[in-house]
């Protein structure tokens, strides 16, 4: 029964991926991609990776989907009277597909190799050559209970810092590419509709609550700044869509600071460790982890909302 479910998930993923890449209409491809994200989150959940499932559902399916849809809307607006077609670069598609397949097979094969060495060894003895085993062995000496958060902030802090910088660079790149084109007005969900107001009154406070819960839970359960930031950003996207928040050309200083707050806080702690003689990225304790994660959450949420709103900053209300 579980095998049937897994096989169904795998087949659905393949079919959805094909539909997203090879579909004739762009809108259909976007919808396929969003559903692909949801099914992928299920698949992560099935193989016991709830952190990845949360991130995939919140960022991969939710916010990326929203970004794709709003880009589609902009595309339709600027090139009216024809439905944009999805044009996969046919010449590149085959080599890229083969390379991806090779990568997946390679990763899968190396995974099987690891499993063999562990079971061939003396049962519970950790294999020192694999990073995951090393992390699990170190977990007892850490104040955290969630190995994923430990990897993100303690073992591979440098990678996390780079990820944040990539997000920031992506936002700056989008700002540059967009130039001075005016932000899209929210016209699909008029702010005056009582049902929209009621939905916002329920969903926005709940999103904030869930976001904080994910942030707090991140230390010993699935969650963390990325997932929490994505949930908070989803509330922001709703506020933008319903016209409660609007994009403005240039941001006030406070919002600019908020954009880089996460990166700066993390970098500050990483470098401060050097000042007191410890290794780079050595964090002084749990309070530092909470502080960094909170700053990351705010920066990630603001960056994602600004990407969606295609603006330099946010302001309350309509024009």
């Amino acid at each position, binding site marked *: 029964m579980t095998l049937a479910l897994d096989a169904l998930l795998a087949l659905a993923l393949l079919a959805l991926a094909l539909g997203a890449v090879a579909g004739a209409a762009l809108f259909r491809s976007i919808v396929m991609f969003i559903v692909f994200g949801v099914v992928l989150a299920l698949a992560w959940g099935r193989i016991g990776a709830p952190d990845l499932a949360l991130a995939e559902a919140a960022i991969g399916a939710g916010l990326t989907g929203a970004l794709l849809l709003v880009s589609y809307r902009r595309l339709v607006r600027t090139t009216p009277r024809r439905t944009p077609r999805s044009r996969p670069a046919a010449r590149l598609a085959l080599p890229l597909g083969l390379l991806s397949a090779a990568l997946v097979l390679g990763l899968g094969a190396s995974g099987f190799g690891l499993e063999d060495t562990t079971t061939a060894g003396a049962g519970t003895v950790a294999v020192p050559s694999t990073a995951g085993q090393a992390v699990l062995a170190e977990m007892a000496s850490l104040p955290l209970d969630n190995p994923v958060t430990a990897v993100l902030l303690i073992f591979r802090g440098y990678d996390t810092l780079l990820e944040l910088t990539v997000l920031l660079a992506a936002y700056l790149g989008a700002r540059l590419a967009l130039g001075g084109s005016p932000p899209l007005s929210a*016209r*699909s*969900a*008029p702010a005056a*509709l009582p*049902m*929209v107001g*009621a*939905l916002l009154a*329920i*969903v926005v406070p*709940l999103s904030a609550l869930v976001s904080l819960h994910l942030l707090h839970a991140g230390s010993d359960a699935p969650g963390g700044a990325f997932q929490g930031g994505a949930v908070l950003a989803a509330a922001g996207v709703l506020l933008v869509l319903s016209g409660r928040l609007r994009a403005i050309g240039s941001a006030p200083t406070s919002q600019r600071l908020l954009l880089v707050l996460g990166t700066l806080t993390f970098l500050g702690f990483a470098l401060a460790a050097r000042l007191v003689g410890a290794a780079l990225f050595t964090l002084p304790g749990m309070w530092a982890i909470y502080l960094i994660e909170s700053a990351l959450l705010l920066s990630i949420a603001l960056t994602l909302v600004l990407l969606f709103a295609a603006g330099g900053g946010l302001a309350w209300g309509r024009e």
Partner: protein
Amino acid sequence: MGLNDIASTLLLAVAAFFYLAGTVGLLRFPDVHSRLHALTKADNLGLLFVCLAMALLSGSARVAALLAVVWLLALVASAVSAHLVARRALQFDPQAPAPAEHRAEPPA
């Protein structure tokens, strides 16, 4: 197989029926409004029965309460999004049967 398992299996079967009905309606009904009707009505019931089955299986009041919150949130979201989709469809197709006060509303 305990009484609990039998009851939750029955609930899941009922849920599957509602989901199936909703999906058939989505695929077969002629226009946006009747499709929305099929989706929101049938799928909300389907989710309710899935949540009931899960609550029975978990046997914990806390999980049952959380599932109730999940169902209520899905209810609110589907009601509002169905309303918005229907409104938008009405603006694109003024011929659709609708109450007069809705038709008189200017496109936003």
